[in-house]
């Protein structure tokens, strides 16, 4: 089928080498710097804090948002992480997940609101989201390294790209699902657009938005693990080490640690969804 040759690879590389890096390098460096401070700050805080205190807080949160079962699981899971000496690695992963989820949510929710209320915006946002979701994650790991170097910053960027779509989509969906007559009623009584949004649409979309945040967090966790390939520290790098040295035991200990984190994060955010449905 090769009627003509499309030198996409060459073009892309030339674009990156001759324009992207020289022209925008500084810009990305400054973003990189800011992000690094942020992620490192969170990581340092989590590692420096006494694990017992963190576990206590975690148990309280689990109890509050989910129940006794999860609180017990959080305790056992934490004991496990400590006993296999993965506490620090777990905290590094948690830091990346928290920071990238935060960024995803801060950017994703307003974007979702815009897409729900503005048709032009929706037609711009949707293909971008499709692109973000279907592009294999390894593909954007490469430019992430180029622009942001190695370590947890490109990991946060890659995770952000991977994990934002659900936050946007579920926000849009939630707002569009608000019954038309409720929106009409709000307008008929003289609401401004803002009042309609924050007194009616957002509160009613909240369960859906929370479900989006839950999805975002889960995707962020899975990406944070993959991002170990570009030098992100954490549980992912433990597993990666297990793979590269064919150390089944190490792979399993690291893998189980990820499962523990996943269950706790999922149940807590699920609990948030349920609470908002009431």
């Amino acid at each position: 089928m090769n009627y003509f040759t499309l030198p996409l690879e060459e073009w892309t590389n030339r674009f990156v080498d001759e324009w992207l890096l020289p022209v925008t390098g500084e810009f990305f460096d400054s973003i990189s710097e800011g992000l690094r401070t942020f992620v490192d700050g969170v990581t340092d805080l989590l590692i420096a804090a006494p694990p017992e205190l963190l576990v206590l807080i975690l148990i309280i949160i689990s109890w509050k948002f989910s129940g006794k079962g999860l609180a017990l699981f959080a305790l056992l899971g934490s004991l496990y992480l400590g006993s296999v000496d993965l506490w620090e690695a777990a905290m590094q992963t948690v830091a990346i997940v928290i920071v990238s989820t935060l960024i995803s949510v801060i950017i994703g929710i307003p974007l979702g609101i815009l897409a729900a209320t503005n048709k032009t915006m929706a037609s711009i946002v949707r293909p971008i989201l499709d692109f973000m979701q279907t592009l294999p994650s390894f593909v954007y790991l490469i430019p992430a390294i180029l622009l942001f170097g190695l370590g947890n910053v490109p990991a946060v960027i890659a995770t952000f790209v991977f994990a934002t779509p659900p936050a946007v989509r579920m926000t849009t969906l939630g707002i569009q699902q608000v019954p038309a007559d409720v929106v009409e009623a709000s307008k008929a009584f003289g609401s401004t657009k803002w009042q309609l949004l924050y007194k009616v649409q957002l509160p009613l979309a909240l369960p859906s938005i929370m479900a989006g945040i839950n999805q975002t967090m889960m995707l962020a966790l899975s990406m944070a693990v993959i991002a170990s390939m570009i030098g992100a520290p954490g549980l992912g790098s433990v597993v990666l080490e297990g793979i590269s040295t064919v150390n089944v035991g190490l792979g399993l200990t690291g893998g189980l640690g990820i499962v523990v984190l996943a269950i706790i994060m999922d149940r807590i955010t699920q609990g948030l969804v349920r609470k908002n449905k009431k």
Partner: protein
Amino acid sequence: MKKIEVNNLTKIFGSHPQQGLKRLMNGEQKESILAETGMTVGVNQASFSVEAGEFFVIMGLSGSGKSTLIRLVNRLIEPTSGEVLIDGQNIVEMGKNELIETRRKKLGMVFQQFGLFPHRTVLQNVAYGLEIQGVKKEERNKRAQQSIEDVGLHGYENSYPKELSGGMQQRVGLARALANDSDILLMDEAFSALDPLIRKEMQDELLNLQNKLGKTILFITHDLDEALKLGDRIAIMKNGEIVQVGTADEILENPANEYVSNFVKDVDRSKVLMASHVMKKPAVHMADKSGALAAVRKMEEAGASSIFVVDKDNNFKGLLTIDNAINAYKENLPIENVLIEDIHEISPETPLNDLFGVAVEAKYPLAVVENGKLLGIVSRVSILSGLVLGKNEVTAP
């Protein structure tokens, strides 16, 4: 004073409404506009006006454009052309802030599916209109509380809409519209989602509320009985056009075209006809000055066994049976002493519908009384003939 005035209001749905409008103005039919351009004429040059304090009903079947029309009045839907004057101000030309202000101060709305905010309590729902105007919490809760009591929902302030029955939910919807204290209520099929018993109850209460509060009401319905019962005047819509505007009587008696008369044909007469439509002048009556013997003679003349008694000012006194009259004559008693006074008195506006039960139980004809004066009598026969013949035939001499 005209509260709402709608002039040549038109709404065309589609990609190029102005082109559609041009075609419409050139006299093209809406069917051919739809076929050639794919655009739908929702409302076609509707004009009507509603007086202050009037209960104005727009009646039409589904697809007649009535729901679109009411949304054009508060611009939930943007009109394609025409004007809507609220207190003389054209809402179509208002800027955003002016429109919001008008909606807040002048237009309350009640929806078919209630449109309540599921995440807010009854009190918060009712207070919503005031809340977005920035009314202080204490003040708005006080006013919301008042309208909650007006609609009989006292005690449910802290319930959520889904905990209430349909009828109660619509009371919340009504209270929410009343809380703003706007002069105009727009009601879009407000009672159509309710079951018949609750609907009747709500209709009666709405009429009471309107009497009490003097609101101007623009009410949409697909139910002609409802329209006839509620409306001071009724506009009948078909295919986006208003085909007739008039009082219930005018529409029943002089339908503007075949469409309307087909509609009206099926009306349940018992709900439309009132006692005054079927009552008859009492065959005989007499001043209380004349004695029992005169009364007996009159009964003989009329071939009746009883007679209604009034004083010289036509004030209703009671019923005199022939037996009592003869007794009174024999014992020389004044007629007043032998009158049967617990006769059923009904007002001329009593619907025929409400007379059945009374008529079955009553031994004598019913007396139609207004301000103490005897206007006429209604016998069982006249109720039945009224049902069968309609009022023209009954009232004809």
